[in-house]
């Protein structure tokens, strides 16, 4: 029996415009429309449009919502100002990662609220985790808005040109990791200066019924700037160049934020949340494998799971690998023993039976130019 895949509000558009549809996290998503390299370069030089409606969107309201989220996130939420967004982790009791999420603190015509945006593949797990930790009789309302809404990312140096005409306040003035609610084109929703590409850009959330019209407007404007729609394959090459972790690869139930080098997501002092004590211990453990960036000397592409060696001894493995369109070389992220995790070190990756040299480099592989 074939599993029925969920479809975003833009599914029909993708299928009708050359989108190669694949399964991802239980959803039918476009992996590419044309060339992965072209979609990647368009995002780095102009603007890329991404349908990311598959991601989980959980809305929390009520006077106890902030305290509740603060009691579960590795990151402080109690002092997250209205209009701000933070990136944090939900940890399990061993310090491993349940999911990496964005927490928004916004206000719309219904009042102030929090939104948790989580990975598609973890949505049900995150909902269960939140529901199981809800205090009795607390003033908290939790609603899964994923199926009622769509989420669109507009990313690239020309993203502002595509977004500014759609909203009332000039988004140019928005600081990174802030968000607003209000009119977007012919609908209402929220937009935030956030993204998963290493470029400037915005992520828009609108009602599902309004998605198609907004998407078509953005595609039109985007194309005028030399931009294009972008699928999941280029989304992966973009985030990998920017060294952003992907759950299931650089983070998992058995991989902690400490090992992933995400210390900035952890406020451990004077706070209590699941995994807090474990993370404090892990922080002081010098034997744990650490995340590294690698650039390969050859042309073969390192893939997830390939072994990494140093002087004939296995020291770790690749968690994500691809061909970097910007560097024009194969790149990878992986976890290796601390002794091998030294920038400048030459390690060996087992590429399907052939050992090839890969150099440890500082992360990220790519940083957008600052104007």
């Amino acid at each position: 029996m074939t599993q029925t895949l969920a479809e975003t509000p833009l599914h029909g558009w993708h299928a009708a415009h050359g989108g190669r549809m694949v399964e991802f996290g239980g959803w039918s998503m476009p992996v590419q429309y044309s060339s992965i390299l072209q979609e990647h370069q368009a995002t780095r030089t102009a603007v890329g449009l991404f349908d990311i409606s598959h991601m989980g969107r959980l809305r929390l309201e009520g006077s106890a919502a902030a305290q509740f989220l603060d009691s579960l996130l590795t990151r402080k939420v109690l002092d997250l100002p209205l209009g701000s967004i933070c990136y944090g982790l939900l940890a399990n009791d061993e310090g491993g990662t349940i999911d990496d999420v964005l927490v928004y603190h916004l206000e719309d015509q219904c009042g102030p609220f929090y939104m948790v945006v989580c990975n598609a593949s973890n949505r049900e797990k995150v909902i269960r985790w939140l529901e199981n930790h809800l205090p009795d009789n607390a003033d908290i309302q939790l609603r899964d808005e994923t199926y009622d809404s769509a989420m669109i990312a507009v990313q690239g140096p020309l993203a502002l040109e595509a977004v500014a005409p759609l909203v009332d306040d000039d988004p140019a003035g928005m600081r990174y990791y802030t968000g607003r609610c209000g009119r977007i084109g012919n609908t209402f929703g929220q937009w935030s200066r956030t993204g998963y590409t290493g470029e400037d850009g915005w992520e828009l959330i609108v009602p599902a019924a309004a998605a198609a019209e907004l998407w078509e407007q953005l595609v039109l404007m985007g194309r005028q700037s030399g931009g294009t729609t972008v699928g999941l394959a280029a989304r992966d090459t973009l985030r990998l160049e920017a060294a952003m972790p992907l759950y299931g690869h650089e983070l998992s139930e058995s991989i902690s934020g400490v090992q992933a080098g995400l210390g900035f997501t952890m406020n451990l002092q004077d706070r209590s949340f699941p995994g807090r004590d474990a993370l404090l211990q892990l922080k002081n453990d010098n034997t744990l494998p650490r995340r590294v960036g690698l650039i390969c000397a050859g042309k073969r592409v390192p893939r997830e799971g390939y072994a990494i060696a140093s002087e004939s001894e296995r020291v770790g493995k690749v968690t994500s690998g691809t061909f970097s369109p910007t560097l024009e070389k194969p790149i990878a992220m992986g976890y290796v023993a601390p002794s091998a995790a030294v920038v400048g070190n030459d390690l060996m990756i087992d590429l399907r039976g052939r050992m090839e040299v890969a150099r440890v480099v500082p992360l990220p592989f790519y940083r957008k130019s600052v104007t």
Partner: protein
Amino acid sequence: MKPEELRYAKTHEWVYVLQEDDNRLATVGISAFAVEALTDLVFLELPEVGKQVQQGDTLGEVESVKAVSDFYSPVAGEVVEVNSELPNELERLGEDPYGQGWIAKIRLSDDSSLDTLMDHAAYGALCAEEEI
């Protein structure tokens, strides 16, 4: 080489057979259908000259941004020549898969392997089926 004159394996390799003195020489490559499915090619590994292959043996691998794929020998014989410029000019595979994009020349050891290959019409039908 015109696609209509070629024969094809189910695994999307094409073959063109030429009689040269006592030898039957097969030029092999990957079909346009397969190359188009791959997109964004970044690496190709050619077989070694002198390699003996049976029909269906792995001949080499082609790698795109997204994944790596083996390609297979559609005939039985010995690799006598390879297109050594191809790995550095992978765009030839997309631009001219039946001409400049040829991969290897194999001296046939066994003609019967040709019988199991498809003609252009049959191959076209296979591709149409795979597309659905």
